[in-house]
């Protein structure tokens, strides 16, 4: 663990959540400092997504406490988490297919202009700002009036990421952000994570691409069947160890061995 001098950006303790007979989260903790990049890994069903949704307000835990910057918070809806500047990129992207690019980026916080006290969408400001945001993130989309259903999988994912990263978050949660992306696009996302964490944004990265973790993370937290099983600083561990922790036993994974063999062979 890291030293305990300063306050944590996020401190989740004793989080439990049960769906019917399944204990999805069992007394899970998670700590995150400003600018930290935490890799959250585990098998399918280990509880990674549920834990991150608890932090984003989309799931309400049965028990446990959350502190943000030392203050106890209780999120009863995603709106509460957004107000505390916790943003999340959901695995299913959470886009509205029949709404245009700008509408999706600004969903829930559309710029408004009031006419006789009635809020109207400020479409021009919304489209101008969308164009700026996309350019800043290097996302190439010709027309911000395109409906999201007309975009490719990579573009859709870029919008979901851009939406979470663009509104000055203090905690950014990314659930499988690189799943639908091509090689160059994955590099772009990893670069984005480095850039925002350098600005002091705390990042939680959930991914099955273990090699990515070693490129951007400071720490890795491993979950297994709804519990924390291990936490490692990135310098003290290897892909092989992480794989073993994820599957819960000694396991000589081919994927892990391949990289080691490469190292050995001339």
């Amino acid at each position, binding site marked *: 663990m890291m030293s305990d001098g300063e306050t944590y950006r996020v401190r989740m303790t004793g989080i439990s959540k049960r769906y019917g007979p399944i204990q999805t989260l069992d007394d899970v903790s998670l700590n995150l400092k400003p600018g930290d990049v935490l890799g959250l890994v585990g098998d399918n069903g280990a509880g990674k997504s549920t834990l991150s949704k608890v932090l984003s307000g*989309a799931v309400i835990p049965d028990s446990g406490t959350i502190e943000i910057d030392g203050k106890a918070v209780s999120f009863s809806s995603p709106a509460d988490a957004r107000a505390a500047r916790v943003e999340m990129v959901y695995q299913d992207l959470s886009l509205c297919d029949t709404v245009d690019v700008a509408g999706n980026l600004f969903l829930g916080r559309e710029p408004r202009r009031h006419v006789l006290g009635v809020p109207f969408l400020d479409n021009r400001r919304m489209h101008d700002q969308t164009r700026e945001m996309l350019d800043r993130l290097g996302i190439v989309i*010709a027309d911000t009036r395109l409906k999201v259903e007309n975009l490719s999988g990579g573009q859709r994912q870029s919008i979901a990421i851009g939406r979470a990263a663009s509104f000055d978050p203090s905690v950014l949660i990314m659930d499988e952000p690189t799943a639908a992306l091509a090689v160059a696009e994955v590099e772009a996302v990893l670069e984005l994570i480095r850039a925002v964490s350098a600005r002091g944004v705390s990042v939680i990265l959930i991914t099955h691409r273990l090699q990515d973790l070693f490129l951007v993370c400071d720490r890795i937290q491993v979950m297994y069947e709804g519990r924390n099983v291990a936490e490692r600083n990135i310098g003290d561990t290897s892909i092989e160890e992480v794989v073993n922790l994820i599957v819960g036993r000694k396991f000589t994974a081919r994927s892990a061995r391949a990289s080691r063999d490469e190292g050995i062979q001339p």
Partner: protein
Amino acid sequence: MNVTSAGVGASPPKRVHNSTWKDVAIANGSAVSIALFFIVVCVVFSLVTGSFLTTPNLLNIVRQSAPLLIVAAAMTFVITTGGIDLSVGSVLALTATLSAVLLQAGLPWPLVVLAMLALGAAIGALQGFFIAYERIPAFIVTLAGLSVIRGVALLITGGYSIPVEPTSFFVNIGRAWFLGVPVPALLALVVLIVAYLAFNQTPFGRYVTGIGANTEAVRRAGVDTRFMTLFVYVLSGMAAAVAGIILAARLGSGSSNSGQGFELDVIAAVVLGGTSLFGGRGTIIGTVLGALTVAVIGNGLILAHMSPFLTPIVTGTIILVAIWLNFRLFKGATRSR
């Protein structure tokens, strides 16, 4: 923070072309195809009958179709969220009879109008509560509403129609003319303009579309989706109340049997206009054209001295053909997923 130069979408040779009128037509395929249908129907009736394309007849059409236009505008919101409101015909009957009853009891007409609007809103809120907060499918809640509310109207009147005093100012709502246009048509115009602005230019309209496309995404964006869903039923209840008031004022009586099958005409108009029953896609312009098409067919067949019983047959056929054309002709506007 120039993250990538590789880019995510288009490559240097231009892959996105400036949209031509053809692309615009395809993107708005549903509205275009119903507009074509509307024009064809109008041209046919103009040629077949001499009296169709006359100012009195056209004003008569908009006067008679005002209730349909008003409720269809509200129903566009409901259907765009992925819901449905089958109770509008019954709410129309209840408000038509109750307004006649209250006027007979001596209540001043503005109070009657306000009471009916509040009643429509309350009925919509109750149904919306079961739909949005208790997660009962809208079809079932409003089917129950259709039955119960019609039953209440029948119970109040015993099945008789209640007359409205012809000297009451109330009847002007349905009969008066203002600047050469029937008042019901003006009311419909105001409702349609407000609906168009709300649907296309306000955050509320945006969330209605979003809820139909992906409710969870809108909820995660911090929007109170349950209240928004409840609210669209409040709108349809109030619109049905307005329609009931106009009908009672125009006919000079409130009948508990009025508006039988009205909900089907409304849904037909909305769907004909290109709003998707699956939610997420709606258009107020299309709804206006759809409602006018339904109205023109009914009017034109009568003027052409055809059996009025042909109206449902023709209307039904046109709905099927128009939507089939949408599926076939204008397919390719979106990526299939």
